[in-house]
């Protein structure tokens, strides 16, 4: 049969496409088969599933008129119950991330807090005035970007608006680094290197990432032939002992 299926573009003037020549054309009347519905059936067909619906219900017009199936009055509603989320058993390494709070003082980075937090972690596309990457044995395990945290910014004075913002720098601030738990083990913490940097432009790291995805950010800049970010400081290794007993133990117990 001449149809245009072989050239595979629609031609509404062509003959119908035969999808499957082994199938018949539609007859004018169908077969009569064996298991058939009983006309006027009075009983429901038995089924293997579930149980009967426990709610009583109107089953006739008379029922409906006399039954108390009316709507309840609208009211105020509380929280919806649940969700019935399954709790991860101890030692279960489902989605979670390591959160590191890092103090910056004149370019010196110090770990001030750490915790493992349940749930997914999402990173920006590396647009920002500052950024960090976290690297283990040359492998980038996390990177994110944000506003310049070293900026101090006073509101405009209503008495002398011409002076604008008071803008200054501060040498002491904190930032947060997040590392997916799946990307780092407890043993690797000692080798985890967190680098805080300022890119040459807010979009520079994102552009480098597009050109050389997944590399440590300095390597990505080199691979992309871009200007290197200015390094603010580095934290060489995560020493949980700095945190004190309970916080350190909490992290240890939740990393592989």
């Amino acid at each position, binding site marked *: 049969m001449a149809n245009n299926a072989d050239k595979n573009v629609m031609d509404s003037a062509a003959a119908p496409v035969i999808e499957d020549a082994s199938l018949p054309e539609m007859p004018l009347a169908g077969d009569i088969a064996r298991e058939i519905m009983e006309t006027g059936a009075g009983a429901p067909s038995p089924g293997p599933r579930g149980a009967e619906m426990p709610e009583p219900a*109107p089953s006739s017009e008379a029922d409906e008129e006399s039954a108390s199936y009316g709507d309840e009055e609208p009211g105020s509603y509380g929280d919806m119950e*649940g969700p019935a989320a399954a709790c991860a058993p101890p030692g279960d390494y489902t989605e979670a991330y390591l959160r590191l709070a890092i103090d910056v003082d004149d370019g010196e980075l110090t770990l001030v807090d750490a915790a493992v937090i349940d749930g997914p972690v999402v990173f920006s596309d590396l647009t920002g005035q500052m950024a960090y990457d976290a690297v283990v044995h040359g492998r980038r395990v996390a990177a994110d970007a944000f506003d310049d945290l070293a900026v101090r*910014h006073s509101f405009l004075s209503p008495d002398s608006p011409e002076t604008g913002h008071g803008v200054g720098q501060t040498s002491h601030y904190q930032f947060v680094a997040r590392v997916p738990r799946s990307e780092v083990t407890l043993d690797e913490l000692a080798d985890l290197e967190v680098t805080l940097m300022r890119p040459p432009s807010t979009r520079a790291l994102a552009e480098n990432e597009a050109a050389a995805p997944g590399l440590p950010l300095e390597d990505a800049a080199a691979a992309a032939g871009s200007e290197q970010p200015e390094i603010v400081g580095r934290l060489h290794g995560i020493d949980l002992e700095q945190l004190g007993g309970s916080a350190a133990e909490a992290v240890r117990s939740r990393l592989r």
Partner: protein
Amino acid sequence: MPESVTTLQPAGSPGAKRDIAIVGDGFQEGEQSLFNDYCRDTVMEGVFRQDFYYEAAQAFNIYRVNLFSADSGVTTNTYDADGNLVNSVHRDTRLDTIFTGMWARCWIEDGPSTSSRLNMVLSAFVPDWDFVLIVVNSTGFGGCRRGNRLYVTRGADWSVVAHEFGHGFGSLADEYCRPGTFSGSEPQEVNVTANMNRSTLKWRQFVSPTTPVPTGVNPNPGNGACTGYNQGTRPALWSSDLDAGLFEGAKYQDSGIYRPVENCRMRGNSPQFDPVCYTEMRRIQHPFSGQTFNHVVTGDFNGDGRDEVLVHNENSIQIYQASGNQLDFVAGAVERVPGSWQFASGDKFYVGDFNGDGKDEVIVYNSTNWNQEYLGLLVDDGDGGLRLIRRYDDRMPGWQFARDDTFAVADFNGDGTDDLIVSNGTNWSPAYLGMLRSTGFGFTVARRYDGVLAGWQMRKGDRYLPGDFNGDGRDDLYVWNGTDWSVRYLAMLHSTGSGYAMVKRYDNTAPGWSMAKHDQHVVGDFTGEGRDDLYVFNGDDWSKAYLGMLSSTGSELSMVNRYDGNAPGWQMRRHDRHWAMDVDGNGRTDLLVYNYQDWSTEYLGTMVSTGSGLTCNWRADWLGEWNLGSVDQFEPCNYEGASGRRDVVVHNDNWLGMIRATPTLSLQRLYYRWIHNYRQGRNW
């Protein structure tokens, strides 16, 4: 009452969102309402009801931390002109902040223990915070941002907070001006530049070709002023915050550096973000918003005669109003709407006018995300959004909800308000069907059928298709089962208003049509006679595809036309999919047809009913700038407010398009990742 944290906006898992903590200092236990009011009025009803922040609210978790200070107010230090402390009024406060009232000292300073105390508080209450807003109990003016901390007094209004968040969440530069000439290299922020070359300008895509570049040039450098439009005549409809050009003065200089618009939020605080800043904020926060266009429903929620578009993602919704051929954001909700419907990923939406007010309401059903099933009735809140007026938890009188309940909208009693049909053949034995009559503010089970429906033995594979096949104003029911019996059955059940009566049953054969397992049906009045007819398509069970037009006489069906393999202007194939439309507004139901699987490219077409046949036209591969694909979903609707139902919203993960189907299929508007109408250019 102990110190506590309250989640004001629970958008999602902390690591997947931006987490803002609002912490008070200098508020005694009995003064918490002052702090709470500030959080509500300034942050929630102020900042997060403004343009970008409202539209992208689901990117942000917002936490309020109530701390109790021993004293009311905070320590106030006074300095002389040389910066010497001349007076200090000490207050014992939870965070030890100090109000100075001096611009040069950033208005508010940390006390010796502020950082350590703040870290302890946040660690306890908001362990994964990104940004903290510290509200000090002072009515004096002032505010200071230090990195990811923003300090404000109670005198700071929403606009300054919105401005500062522009720095904190968008890395945006200030667009203020002061005397001075910029002489450095190109600034790193996206919204300021030293580059005057139109072809390489950072924001060139937002500048109209007719706009002069530069657009504003400072005639007196050193005057400290930000220059407005002065290169030619400022167009009458020029917007000072939305029309982009190149205006001299930005980032604390009045010359040698330029900003995109005359006055945006990064200069004047209260104006909205200009297209450059808006796009940057959206782009950076997009991964945290989690927004896609995968789940879209349409309906005329505000009763203006045009369908709005409701976008649902996880625990949020956004509603966009149609205006001409574009959509404008009107309202959104994160986590819940007033009345307490909490949105979740498994929500299913059904749209109809359930109270007869001429506006569409929304039924939401969720049987997967909670410990029990929920059904909610959401109505227009009068401000473009929705509010819940009725919720059924787990059951309603006469019906026990179950996981696989399936709903259909139908006015089965002909009172002019839509009702619901609910069926479940999966979770119970026997199968059930309920007729839920709308009371305008809820539903009542008018009738329930347990296993047998007016002579029809109900089975798991039953498909219920409401339609007024006898033209009496009540929606009747076509019932189809092609899987559970060795005979294929199609029934016409007439609605009495409170029940159904069997009118006709077809066993294996309808007039001119041999029924087969994979028959697909679309209900609609294709003859224009006031009765709902039946399109039936089968592309699987025969050697070629068939499309039948079965017209209802009110008591039976008759074959008006059957297309074997080809319809006029459309070659039918196995995976054709159909939706009901009224392309030409003549009251006859037409079809939208799509096939992305059977040809070397995708085809989208219309099949317009003449009453006794079809005329088709189609577009292949591209529809304007829309590249048709396998992931595309289609929502026939009426966003134009014209007669009929001639519009289609097409959507997938990242893209949403507005299609008009007459005179031929044409794309009217295209959005990428978010819905925003730029006056010039776009975000891709």
